[in-house]
Each structure stands twice: as C-alpha cells, then as structure tokens.
C-alpha cells in the first residue's frame, strides 16, 4: 500500500460523494504536524452512497480491514444495505467512514459548521476547528490530547 490521501480526497470529491473530513487528516489540513495513518471522513452511509463509494474506490481494491479475511468492499455489504460505519483499506490508503463523531454529532451537525477549503480547484469540507478540538478531547487518548493542544494553539494563532 502506498498512501496518497490527496488522491483519495480528489477522487471522492470528483465522484460527488458528500462528506466532511474529520480526524487526524483534518488536523493536518489546519496545520498540525502529526502524522496519521488513515483518512477519516463523516458521511451518511445510505445504500446509494455505499454504491457510489464502491464505484469510486473500485480501481483500488477496497477491502474491509476489520474483517479477518479482508472481505472485498466490492462484494460486501450486499446491494441495498446501509451501514453506520465503514473501515476500509485500499491500495492508496486506509479510509474510515463514520456516521457520527464522538463529542460532536452526525454528518448534518458537522456539515452545518464545517469549513470550506478549495484545494487544487476542488471544494473540500472539513470539520470546524472548534469541533475538531472537541472531538479530539472527547476521544481522550494521549495522541489525541496532544493534537488537541496543537489545534488550540493553531486556533489562537488564527484569531490573532
């Protein structure tokens, strides 16, 4: 696997899939120096959206990374099924798609305050900085607390 999250984001954006970027890569977007191993996004995983994701990721051998046999995302879940979360591994990186963010809320809540970034001509919605800090503090693991402190510094620098 050769991670290329920029490529994943570009492909997702071009496909029309509606999402808000969350997690460590959102922190990187705001200027954090942390390195994250996965791209986390928040979205509504209706059966239609799952189908769109399948088409979008098809060329990158998407598989369910939490299953023992790494089941193919191209075959599971079956057509017409919806999900709450998806934990995928692709040839260009790990992507986790969550329906809610601990300490903040669901996709609609996140999108209502999300910040718009235009990157290489594409519009990308990213969880707001205050929401990201709240989410990192709610998770409470050591590395998340560290990122939260870094983000609070970035927030202070942005205000000044």
């Amino acid at each position, binding site marked *: 696997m050769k*991670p290329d999250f920029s490529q994943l984001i570009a492909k997702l954006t071009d496909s029309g899939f509606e999402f808000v970027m969350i997690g460590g890569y959102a922190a*990187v977007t705001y*200027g954090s120096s942390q390195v994250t191993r996965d791209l986390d996004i928040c979205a509504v995983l209706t059966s239609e959206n799952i189908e769109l994701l399948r088409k979008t990721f098809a060329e990158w051998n998407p598989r369910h990374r939490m299953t023992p046999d790494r089941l193919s995302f191209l075959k599971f879940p079956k057509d017409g099924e919806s999900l709450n979360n998806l934990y995928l591994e692709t040839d260009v990186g790990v992507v986790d798609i969550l329906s809610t963010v601990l300490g903040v809320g669901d996709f609609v809540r996140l999108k209502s305050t999300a910040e718009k970034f235009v990157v290489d001509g594409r519009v990308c919605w990213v969880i707001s900085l205050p929401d990201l800090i709240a989410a990192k503090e709610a998770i409470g693991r050591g590395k998340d607390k*560290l990122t939260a*402190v870094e983000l609070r510094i970035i927030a202070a*620098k942005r205000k000044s």
Partner: protein
Amino acid sequence: MVLDNELLEQAREAGIDLDLIDTNLALRVEERWRQHDGALRFILKLQEAKAADEAGLQPTNR
C-alpha cells in the same frame, strides 16, 4: 502574537514544536497534505524494512 500562558505550558510539556506549527501554517493546504503523505510513506517504508530485518534475524531451534 501572544498565546495564553497555560496553553504554552501545555505545549511545552507535550513537546510541541511551535516553530514547526508556524512553518506548517505558512504552507498552502495542498503542500501540508503532500508533506504529510510523504512522511507517512517514509514511516511505513521504515517499518517494513525493520520488520524484514527482524524476520531475517529470528533465532531458530537449531
């Protein structure tokens, strides 16, 4: 720019490099992403090399 003293203290305790944050903030988002992805690929490559090395050095029963 003046940062809250408590926040600065937390940053110091956590070992956060404030200069590095300034460097990142001076970059465009696409450059932040590019640097991050490059760093991640490098980390994974190092881990693979370490795992391969350790596999080659496994003691045997002979």
